[in-house]
């Protein structure tokens, strides 16, 4: 009766000692910050930071190869948590959202398209079935690509829910017509058109397309809007979202997002105080 207890007991002691020695000899020091950063991140593994998932981003921060504000979906809150963990000062985070540069809901088809219901596939064939070669094809590749459910097809046209949008940039990648841009939530005025056709050609296919009349260029007090290649383009370094061009635009191509964002409680953007650590 006593023998098995002695044998098992001594075996236990032996292995215990072996494990103890092994843990000392092969010890790998793990930065405790790594785990804390990982738990602070959203864990969506969306890849918007440009690294392999949240774990990869955490490693990059600890190594100093990524900025603490790099997590786009996490935004301000996460940046601060990480900044606290790393003991550095977080730079101001500018919340961005995806902006769709097309409003051509009523653009007709040039031909009857039969085939895969995908914008990317349709665009390969003569630029897609829509009369406007620069506009939305309306099969919703962007809505499919959005991991946060922020883009929905309403009456067959994509609409961005800016409350849900985290500016991960998947829609920018997915759109074959390059209709999305990531813009600061503070910027309220946007051109809802990408057509580089002449005014006449654009007008013939779309009611709300940019006709390159240059009224916006004339009215802008900050020299922020310029018509180049038949399209009004806003320089956001200069734009103050005053909205003068919006009321001047004869085709309602330039739009003001102020009211819409106000209604959703997204504007005015809350000002955050810089934190010293």
């Amino acid at each position: 009766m006593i023998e098995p207890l002695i044998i098992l007991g001594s075996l236990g002691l032996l292995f215990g000692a072996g494990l103890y020695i092994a843990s000392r000899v092969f010890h790998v020091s793990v930065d405790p910050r790594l785990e804390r950063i990982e738990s602070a991140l959203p864990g969506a593994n969306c890849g918007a930071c440009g690294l392999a998932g949240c774990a990869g981003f955490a490693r990059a921060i600890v190594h100093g190869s990524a900025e603490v504000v790099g997590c786009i979906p996490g935004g301000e809150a996460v940046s601060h948590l990480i900044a606290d963990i790393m003991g550095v000062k977080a730079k101001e985070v500018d919340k961005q959202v995806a902006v769709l540069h097309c409003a051509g809901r009523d653009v007709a088809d040039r031909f009857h398209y039969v085939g895969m219901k995908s914008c990317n596939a349709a665009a390969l064939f003569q630029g897609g079935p829509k009369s406007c070669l620069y506009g939305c094809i309306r099969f919703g590749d962007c809505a499919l690509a959005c991991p946060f459910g922020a883009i929905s097809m309403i009456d067959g046209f994509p609409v961005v829910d800016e409350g849900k949008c985290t500016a991960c940039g998947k829609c920018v990648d997915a759109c074959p017509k390059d209709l999305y841009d990531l813009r600061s939530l503070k910027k309220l005025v946007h051109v809802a058109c990408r057509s580089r056709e002449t005014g006449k050609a654009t007008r013939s296919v779309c009611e709300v397309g940019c006709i390159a009349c240059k009224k916006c260029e004339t009215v802008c007090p900050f020299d922020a809007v310029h018509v180049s290649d038949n399209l009004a383009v806003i320089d956001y370094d200069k734009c103050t979202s005053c909205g003068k061009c919006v009321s001047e635009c004869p085709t309602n191509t330039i739009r003001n997002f102020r009211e819409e964002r106000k209604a959703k409680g997204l504007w005015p953007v809350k000002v955050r105080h810089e934190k010293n650590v």
Partner: protein
Amino acid sequence: MRRTFKKGGVHPPDMKERTRDVPIAEFPAPALVMIPMAQHFGSPALPVVGAGDKVAKGQLIGKADGRMSANVHSSVSGKVLRLEEKFTPQGRACKTVVIENDNSGIWADEIPCGRDWRAMSPKEIVEAVAAGGVVGMGGAAFPAHVKLEPPHEKPIDTAILNGVECEPYLTIDHRLMVERAAEIITGLRIIAKAVAAKEMVVGIESNKPEALKAMNAAAAGGGIRVEALDVKYPQGGEKQLIAALTGREVPPGKLPFDVGCVVHNVGTAWAIFNAVAKCVPLIERPLTISGDAIERPANLMVPIGTPVGAVIEHCGLDQKVKKILSGGPMMGMAIADPTIPVVKGMSGILALKKVPHDISGPCIRCGRCIEVCPLGGIASEMARAIEAGAIVDYEHLHVFDCMECGSCSFVCPAGRNLVQYVRQAKEEASYRRELHRKQQAKKQI
């Protein structure tokens, strides 16, 4: 003994009766031609004329940009009106030279000429073919001079002419073989000389007895074998034709060069003959205009750059037309705009009253697409991968080996647009590849 390739294949109704016996007629050059710079596989040609320039018939208007490109010549004499971005039948936009025809028909200097190709060296032949802007006329529009210059480490023993014409409706290769057999056979001899091939074979499907007779007569006593092949689609595919004629299999990702073969279409051989023996560049191409919505089906010799609408008008269009195709019904592309020009790689124009319903349902796992794929591909899985956005799978599934013959879409009982899925997978995979390459480069910095 008749032969065919072993793996896969389908038997679509051949629909060739209406144009089989119609001789090739000249199509009068239109008032305006629009000549795209990208009519071939590879980089687009660079335009060498500007608005207002006078051009003569056969004059160089686009210069090949590198080796994998082809010269482009004016198909009429007249004045360049403008250069514009325009869609080609392949579905992409490129620079297009618009020329107003002055109807004088004046040729450029030194065209046509009389040259003895027998006195020319292989290098001179390749140069003449490149100068003439000859590209593959079977559909892929691969620059012909590239196929005439095999790499040194890959000797060629067999030069093959492709007279299969397995696409339904099309009869233009058939008519060319019947009417211009001697020129085609000379073209084959020129090809064989350029690549130093000992053996010369012509593959023709047995549903073209007249072509077989004419080609046999023209090739008599010259060491050329004219083979009758069993009818099966897609026998006109390069790899399938090599398998049918020589029993050799071209491995995935390899070229006919790798098994000692070079394959040219009979139309290409005819164009090579013109470019080498007569200095005439590729400025017109034979076309079949057919389909149930065409009132007077025809085989026509059409100047490159002629709007498709003008050709259809010439043959009479039924108002009940539903779809217009460039090429055959299996591999052809739909044409959405009648001003799209005729290009070097276009083998026919079809106008159809009936089009398949867009039923595209879910895959029912019947496996027919796998049975008929001549390359042993798994179209159903490729489609599923693209639907799921499974980028990793594309290369694993060998999407780049697909030649888009359409056999899978043809047999799919669920009406799935399988070829389009694969085309999309190719696009996606090359985009990801490029992205990956850029990221790697960034990491190294």
